[in-house]
């Protein structure tokens, strides 16, 4: 489904001629329906990796394929349709601050030119799934961190994406909310959605018992089918 071939990403450092390699020769394949955890210390290159898969950043070298199509050669106008197949969840939620919970979630569906009727019902259903059915008219600033993250997850899932990219989705949450969020990811994965989760949490990695790709200094240190936190 997703294939990364010798991906490198080099950033020039400000105020000097030096460069920093965020990723070096990273290659792996992702099968449809997999749940992969990318683990590594802060600054290891996990976020850069997800950004490259999401077409937010272009790699300095290498290729990324999504269902056989080279994303590095995708034109700007086609990136929108690619992103309609992806769901994003971030540590800082990235919610639209002037939209209500309902509008934040429905926005992801509206941008896909959703033509079927019953959009409102779909949004209500997904909000029920994440336990926010009573907060539909609240604005992000009126919600707790866990609630915001659940809105972000609802937004990531509303358009039934093929892949969910989650970058430290539990980084700002307490253990109770973290457990809830992981339950949702597991449930979505059981329904066939591919999940790519970046985290530096030992507990999460060990509790999931799924494929783990460990990244260290921009390079893949290990790739195990049922991995554990090894750093």
């Amino acid at each position, binding site marked *: 489904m997703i294939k990364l071939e010798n991906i490198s990403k080099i950033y020039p450092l400000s105020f000097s001629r030096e460069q920093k390699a965020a990723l070096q020769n990273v290659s792996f394949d992702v099968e449809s329906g997999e749940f992969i955890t990318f683990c590594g210390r802060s600054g290891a290159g996990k976020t850069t990796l997800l950004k490259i898969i999401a077409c937010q950043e272009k790699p300095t070298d290498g290729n990324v394929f999504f269902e056989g199509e080279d994303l590095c050669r995708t034109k700007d106008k086609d990136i929108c*349709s690619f992103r309609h197949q992806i769901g994003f969840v971030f540590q800082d939620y990235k919610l639209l601050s*002037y939209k209500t919970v309902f509008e934040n979630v429905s926005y992801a569906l509206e*941008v896909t*030119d959703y033509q079927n009727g019953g959009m409102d019902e779909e949004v209500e259903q997904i909000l029920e799934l994440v336990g926010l059915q009573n907060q539909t008219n609240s604005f992000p600033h009126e919600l707790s961190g866990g609630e915001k993250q659940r809105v972000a997850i609802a937004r990531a899932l509303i358009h039934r994406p093929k892949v969910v990219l989650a970058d430290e989705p539990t980084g700002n949450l307490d253990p109770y909310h973290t457990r809830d969020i992981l339950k949702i990811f597991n449930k979505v994965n059981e329904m066939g959605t591919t999940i790519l989760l970046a985290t530096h949490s030992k507990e999460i990695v060990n509790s999931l018992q799924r494929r783990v790709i460990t990244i260290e200094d921009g390079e893949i240190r290990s790739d195990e089918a049922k991995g554990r936190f090894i750093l």
Partner: protein
Amino acid sequence: MSKKTFKKILRSGWNNFQRQGILTFATLFIIFIAVFLASSLYLFGGAIYFLNDRLQERIDISVFFKENTAREDIAGIEEQLKAVPEVKKVEYISADEAYQKFVEEHKDDQYYEALQAIEMNPFLASVHVQAKDPSQYGEISSFLKKDEFQSVIQNVNDYKRGTVIQKLTDLTKNIRTIGFALIGFLSLIAVLVTFNTIKLTIFSQKAEIEIMRLVGAKKSFIQGPYFIQGLLCGLSASLFAFVLFGAFAFILQDKLSGIFLGFNMFDFYRTNLWQLLALQFGTGLLLGTISSVLAVQAYLKK
């Protein structure tokens, strides 16, 4: 774009306008100032034209005729003057009319008493000549210096006022030139300040625009609501400026009339209502929409 998408964009733009209190207020306020400034400059332009006309009306050449000159002789000169291409208006004032006019103007002061004391009409019959353009007084003056007129003409007062006429002519030209240069300069500043303020307010939306792109929104779907929001800000700002400017014009009409030689601000506002409406709403809507579209476009390119 489908009707449904258009509706969504309209709704989203309206929601942004309502909900983004400080952003909306800042944008609306700066457009209001620009529209108010544009209206003031338009009014200033009107006042300059008015003053210019009044000054030009006050410039004339007065030809005084010798006592006992026959009315027919004066009428003959009047006819010849009317035939001069540079002449705009010729007005005859008889000695009696001049006397009456003086009495009217000075009935309450010592000049009237002085006139009563001499017990005669000291005024001469006169003809007042206005040129189409102040620069043409020289030619009219030369025409009146012809020998054939000297037997009936007592004096032509431009000999004494020649420099004054020239100075007034120069002054009106300068006022117009400086006035319109000032209008152009201030308009440019208003547009630049407005554009940059709106750009700064949209800068705070940079993160939101990035999120929209990340969830796969097309450029038109991102830009649309900002366009509507800019349109609504421009519309509201123009409406406020229109009402407030009208109120100021009404309240200050008497005070300003004294300063601008009888220029009535409120009358000007009423008589030029459609032009003012077009100027205010045109400025407001253009500033609101163009600056919001350009500012969003800058973030969409990145």
